[in-house]
Structures are given as structure tokens and as C-alpha cells.
């Protein structure tokens, strides 16, 4: 067993875990943060995207031990005091989600995109989402939501 410590959504946590524990398992099963989802076993669907030290990362492809000491943000840490972040609000406004399963990963990934590129073209948004699969929306309203949030966040 191994002791790991990190900051998750602003709170310091320390847990003793099996060294094989993936970050996504750590979040879901040890911290009960079940907003981060698992949709595949090959690191492709992006349902598990979180931020590690401000960068998007697939939590299914990292060990909890690898993020020792890091600052982790999950979907549960995005809204503040119950108010949706502009990105979350834009997904709602533009119907960028249906079943909701890929949504946390989409939101986390989109937030990282805007850090790198605050004013992306539609093509750049679509290309960035290469690592996030949605089966419900046809992506159209996700792109619309991200563009709307980008505009809001720039202003």
C-alpha cells in the first residue's frame, strides 16, 4: 500500500491506496467524486478528463501516485458556490449535452482549450476535441457552447 497526498478541488487529501490505483479510481472510489467518468479502456473517450496542475489530463491513464503533491481539479470543482462557470452555463444554454456522460470531460477539456487559445476557430475547437467522444450530440452544440463561452470569457 502507498500513501498519496494531493490537493483536489482546493482541499488537501491524503489516502493510503494500492500502488496500482489509477487517478480516476482514486477520485471516484476513494474521494467519491463520481463526476469524472470512465468510458473506455484505451485512453480515447475523454470522459475522465481532469486538470492536473492546470493542464487537462486523462485520469484513466495516470496512477494516483503520479500526481503526488499536485493540484487536481475535477468537474465538481468548476462551479463556484453553486453558480455554473461560464463554460458550464454555455453547455446548458446551447444544449451541448444530452445523456451527460461525456460532459464532465468535455467541459474540462474545453476549459483547457481556452487557456491555450482564448479565441479558437470552429475548426480549432473541433480538432481540440479529438480526444473526447460524444455519442449523443453530433458535437454541433458542443462547438457552439464552447464558442459562446469563449466569447463570454474574453469579455
Amino acid at each position, binding site marked *: 500500500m502507498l500513501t498519496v497526498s494531493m490537493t483536489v478541488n482546493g482541499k488537501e487529501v491524503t489516502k493510503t491506496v494500492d500502488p496500482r490505483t489509477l487517478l480516476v479510481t482514486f477520485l471516484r472510489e476513494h474521494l467519491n467524486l*463520481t*463526476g469524472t467518468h470512465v468510458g473506455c479502456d484505451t485512453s480515447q473517450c475523454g470522459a475522465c478528463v481532469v486538470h492536473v496542475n492546470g493542464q487537462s489530463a486523462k485520469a484513466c491513464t495516470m496512477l494516483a501516485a503520479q500526481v503526488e503533491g499536485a493540484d487536481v481539479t475535477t468537474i465538481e470543482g468548476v462551479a463556484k458556490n453553486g453558480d455554473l462557470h461560464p463554460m458550464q452555463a454555455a453547455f446548458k*444554454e446551447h444544449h451541448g449535452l444530452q*445523456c451527460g456522460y461525456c460532459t464532465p470531460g468535455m467541459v474540462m477539456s474545453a476549459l483547457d482549450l481556452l487557456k491555450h487559445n482564448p479565441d479558437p476557430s470552429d475548426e480549432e475547437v473541433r*480538432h481540440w476535441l479529438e480526444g473526447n467522444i460524444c455519442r*449523443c450530440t*453530433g458535437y454541433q452544440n458542443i462547438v457552439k457552447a464552447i464558442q459562446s463561452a469563449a466569447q463570454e470569457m474574453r469579455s
Partner: protein
Amino acid sequence: MPDTGIGASVKRKEDYRFLTGKGHYTDDINKAGQVYACFLRSPVAHAKVTSINAEEARKADGVVAVFTGQDMADDGVGSLPCGWVVTDRHGDPHKAPPHYPLVRDKVRYVGDQVAMVIAESLSQAREAADMIEVDYEELDPVIDMKSAENAELIHEEAPGNLCFDWELGDKSAVDEAFSKADRVAQLDLVNNRLIPNAMEPRAAIGEYDSGTDSYTVYSTSQNPHLLRLILCAFVLNLPETKVRVVAPDVGGGFGSKIFAYAEETACTWAARKVGRPVKWTAERAESFLTDAHGRDHITHVELALDAGGKFLGLKVDTKANLGAYLSSFSTCVPTYLYATLLAGQYTTPAIHCNVKGMFTNTAPVDAYRGAGRPEATYVVERIVEVAARELDMDPAELRRKNFIQPDQFPYQTPVALNYDTGDYEPTLDKALQMIDYTSFSQRRAESERNGKLRGIGFSAYIEACGLAPSAVVGSLGAGVGLWESAQVRFNATGTVSVFTGSHSHGQGHETTFSQLVADKLGIPYENVEIVHGDTGQIPMGMGTYGSRSLAVGGSAISKACDKVIEKGRKIAAHLMEASPEDVEFKDGHFTVSGTDKSKAMAEIAFTAYVPHNYPEGVEPGLDETAFYDPLNFTYPAGVHIAEVEIDPDTGMTEIKDWVAVDDFGRILNPMIVEGQVHGGIAQGVGQALYENCVYDSDSGQLITGSYMDYCMPRADNFPTFRVGMTTSECTHNPLGVKGCGEAGAIAAPAALMNAITDALDQEIDMPASPEKVWRIAQAKIKQAAE
């Protein structure tokens, strides 16, 4: 229009929890003391199981139990049933071999359940599963449908690996039509096999309470009551009073979560055996192997026409792959949900279809978004396009010439359905206008100047939705009724709880149904809650599939609201000292005609629960249940037009434009409807360009068993779809609605393949991968140079 009423694009109620990570999907649920199940799956496609040695596994760390098919047999566990009996053309029922949750003698596809290991942790369960020794006596796998009839037998009960040889339509009328034809267009088609891939993998938790001798099953189901019915009445032999099925938030279904599968059955059964909650969540690899797949037809079609282009007859021969076992509704998909749609939007007077349902050593095949109707549309719309090319007619005009006309409704097709309403020309015209069809030749010339091949493709689809009139489907072999239920309960303070048998797994029922109830009862939208997915709370319901939720489930809600209003009228009449006949209900208020007397709905609800001043003979409470059995199917229809540009140097197909004009009848929430259309088109485009399930024809191994091998459409594969609407309201349900969930997936493949074959001037099967397209384009270039 109130901004939350019918017709408004109300933002969804369910979004807040999904956007903040507070959805409750099955895998998010953990029960005190739970143990984890892992299934040992067959590594071979077809073999006799001669021995299973689990001694070592049983002794491994953390292992609670190992179960095999024999354990289930000893306990009297039954077979997973197929709920629809198809009678073949000789009058015999389809061959229905048993499908046990854990195999008893043979494995019949890669992924078949051989044993179940239950341990304290998932990793311990997995490790122990690896310790089980199974001896397989391998048999030749049967993978190719074309040669299946003469291959090794998969089930003793099904000679020739034939499940049914079924037909619909008047063969002699068709033969006569063909004998008089000036032209016959013909085509061989493959409707490629797909893997549904809802983003949430299937999952289940079985829980047993020895104190009450009852079970709770949490499952990723589109229809919890149907799952309960199958578990209780067919497989585990339990009274329904002892089983509660909860389908909480479900992350997409597309048909694949309609069915009762081995895993949730085994978890439920095992929970009692081990006395602890048993949890299983599929890995994506297991989803690929064992979720019911979709489509997989090979078809020969012939269309007879007169010299002017009128359709005279249609002849269709199809082989449909059913996989290794019959999934819950697998037999009706390539029969009654397929051949009945072969009239399309046209007046073709004679149609005959023969379907052979084949067993193969592949995963079971069942309903996947559209279920039979995309296959029918693909046959009709591809052959119509081929006919237009052979006659050198404009494909839009050939369609127009054969459309059923508005004055012909209700229209009885030669393949059993009776279309209640439709108006196809305005839909075509709107689509032509949106895509600017008249200037297509200029765009094509422009592409040509740039060294690209441009094509345009049409798909004038129809679907039968709102499944379905119970007596009709019963006469065709369905084992269930396809009505829906609703309970509308006013609470004393004026809020309303609605319990619906429909199940939302992305469709936004909590929003749309709230709009409906708020509108009917004249109360604030915020005051309505929608409860679904729990057999412990809702009335017996049939769930969500076949674009039925609003047309059938919504109609049940509407009926229950009507009952609430009728009871409220009596209470209001009493309070206002009027006769009920003189009391009108409008905008949430009961009024007495010709007076200024008025009572708000909420006040009536309060009175119903605090009945101090109350009419004689009226029961307290305001809580009404209704069941709605549709009178007919609904018939959404529309025209999609795709425009593509192909780069002959790379074989890449770029979708340059897409217009979808759909007639869904009355629309409650346009935003949600458009979202359904986008998603449906994306799945249809996926089928036509990217997705393809492939089994190795020798070994029966699934070659496309991960997201690295099965091409899921990504965001940069799509253009912006342009969606338009026309409206002819359904004539036989109280809401005038038709359903919109499957239309995109039904329409899209034919539109896209018509565009690609137009650009290439040659036939090509789905998926039109860059390699296939490149080979054709290069051969053409070479041919032209010679």
C-alpha cells in the same frame, strides 16, 4: 407563447446535475458490503466446453464465489427470452434456442459468458478469473452469413443456422408488376454491422434483502419494468413484488440498453447466493464484445418502373445476421420493423420482401437507433437513386413523381402499414431550397476545377414510430403490449409529481414532459418534477425506444392531466356553487361561464387534500393515473440532402453541406428536437463513413474491439448540419406529435452514400472509407488516361 410552454426551447432541467458532476449513473452507486463480479468470457467463437476447473480460483485471495452455468442450472435459472415470435413463411414460429446467462455446454461467440467470479475487489476478481481452466473442443466458427446455411450447426434447434425464413407482401402481384415493367433497376447492398457504443458502459448492481426476501437491481436500462418482467417471469422465476429495478441516470442507450443481458441477470441471482450486493461494470472491451450489435444485412433489391419513372413494384431479398443468440427483440427488427417500411414515401403498388434470419458465431444483434427502419430506408433510397441515374432523371423529380399525395391519406401501403398523415412535397421543396439545388452544377464545376469530385445525395425517409398499438404488434408476434403509463400527482401545496413509464437517457424528458404538464395544467414549469426509471416509484411502464416517449408516454401524461382537470372541475364547481358543466378550465383556472368566479388549480389541489368544504361523493386527493395505447404508429418523414467533395488523391470525403428537413408533427421543444436530429445524423454519417464491426472470418475474433480499431466519429468529422422543419400533425394521438429520436440515423446513410456514389459515379458499400474511395477514384483516373 410563454417561455416555458409548448413550443419553447426551454433549457434543460437535468443539465445542472450533469454539468456539475452530480449525475447518478449506475457505476456511481456503491452499496455497503458490495462485492465485485468479473465474467470469464470465451476466447473462442465456437466450441464445446468439456470441463471447467475453478478450484484454484475459488481459493484465491478475496474470492467470494465462482459460478458456472451448471450452478445456475442446478438453481433452476432459465433462459433469456426473445420477446417477439416471428412466424415464418411456412407458418412455423422462429427457431428459439435457449440463451443461458452462463453457458452450459457450448460457447457460441467470442465474449460468451463462461463463468462469474465474485471477489472483495475487482482486481481480485479479475486475477481469479485468469486462474480458471477451461477445456474447449473447438468447432468451425460460422461468421459469414452467406455460407452459414451449409456450415457447422450453432444450435441443434436451428438446422441450416436458419432462425426464420420470413416474407411480407404479395409475391404474385410483384411478379406481375415486373412482367409489365419498362425498366428494372437492381442493386446489391451491404448494411454494415455496427456497435452501438453508448458512452456509459453497461453496469449492474444486484442486491438481496433476506429480511423481506426481495431484490433491488440497479441497471443501465432503457426500460426497467421490462427488465423486471424478464428477470421475474422468464429467467429467475420470482414474483414481481419481490424485485425492484432502478435505472438511474443512464448515459445513452441507442437501443443497446433495451435488452435483458446475462450480466444483470447473473448479478441479481448471485446477490442472494453470496448474501451481499454484487456489482459489475463493463469495460469498454466488454461493451464491444457483448452489447447487442446493430444492422448487418446483405440485400438484393429490384425496382420495376414504367417508362415515365412511375414505380410499379419492389422486390427485396435480405439476409439478416442475428448473431449467436436471440437478444430480447432481435427477431422483429429485420422483419416487422424493416419490411413494413419498404413503401417509403412512395405509391409503389406491389412490394415483396423475403428475409432469412441467420445464426452466426458473433455477438447477438438487436435494435440500434432506428432498428430496421434505417435498413429499409437504405434499400429504398439507394435503389431510387440508382433508378434515377439509369433513367437519366433528376433524383428529386423522380421522388416527387412517386410521392404519396396529401389527398391519399390515410394511405394503406402494400406492406401492412397505414400512414395516417404526411405531406412530402413541401419537405422536399424546403430541402431543395435550403441546399440551393439549382446552383449545384456550378458548385460541382468549381470542385472539378480544384481537382475534386462533388456529389449530391437525397434521402426521403419515412419511419414508423411511437411503438406501438398493442393489438397490432400482438397479432404480429410481440410478447408484450406497447402502451405507456403516467401518474400525475398534485401535492397539497400545488407542486406536481409526474411518474412516467418512459425512461430518459439523454432525451431530456424532465424538461419536455414538464413543459407539457405545465401547459396542460396551467401551473409554473418549475413546479413540475418528473420521476422515472424506478419500478418502486412509477406505474408499470414500457420504457423508451422506437421514438415512443412523447408520442406514447407523453400522450399518457396528457390523458392523466385530463383526468386531474376533470376531478378538479367537480371540486371547483362545488367551491363556486356552480354545476360542473358550467365550469371551464383554462390557463390554470377554473371559471364559471358568464361570471367572474375563478379558482386557481393550486387552490383546488389544496382543497383536494384538505377537504373540509368538499363535494359529496368525490374522493379526496388529486392523483390520477392513465395508460395510453396508441391507435397506430406515427410516421415522421423528411428529406435529407448531403453534399460531399472527394479528394481523389487521398480518398477523403468531406461533407460540404447537410440539410435535414423533417416533419415530426407538433414540436414541444425545438432545441431538444434539433439536438436529436444532430445526434442521429452523426450516427448515420458514422455508419456511412467510419464505423464498421469486423469479425475475422476464420477465427471469429472481433477485430474491431476497441476505439483504436472501431472508428468512432469525432468532432472534426462533421460539418454544421442545417435543420429545417415542416409540420403535419399526427392525427391519432392527443398531442399531434410523431417522434424525432431516430430520424437522423434513418435518413443519413442513404443521403451520404447517394452523394458519394454520385461523386464517384460508381457503387460502393458502407463504410466508404478513404481507402475504398481512393481505389475507385484512382481507377477512374487511370481509366480516363487510357
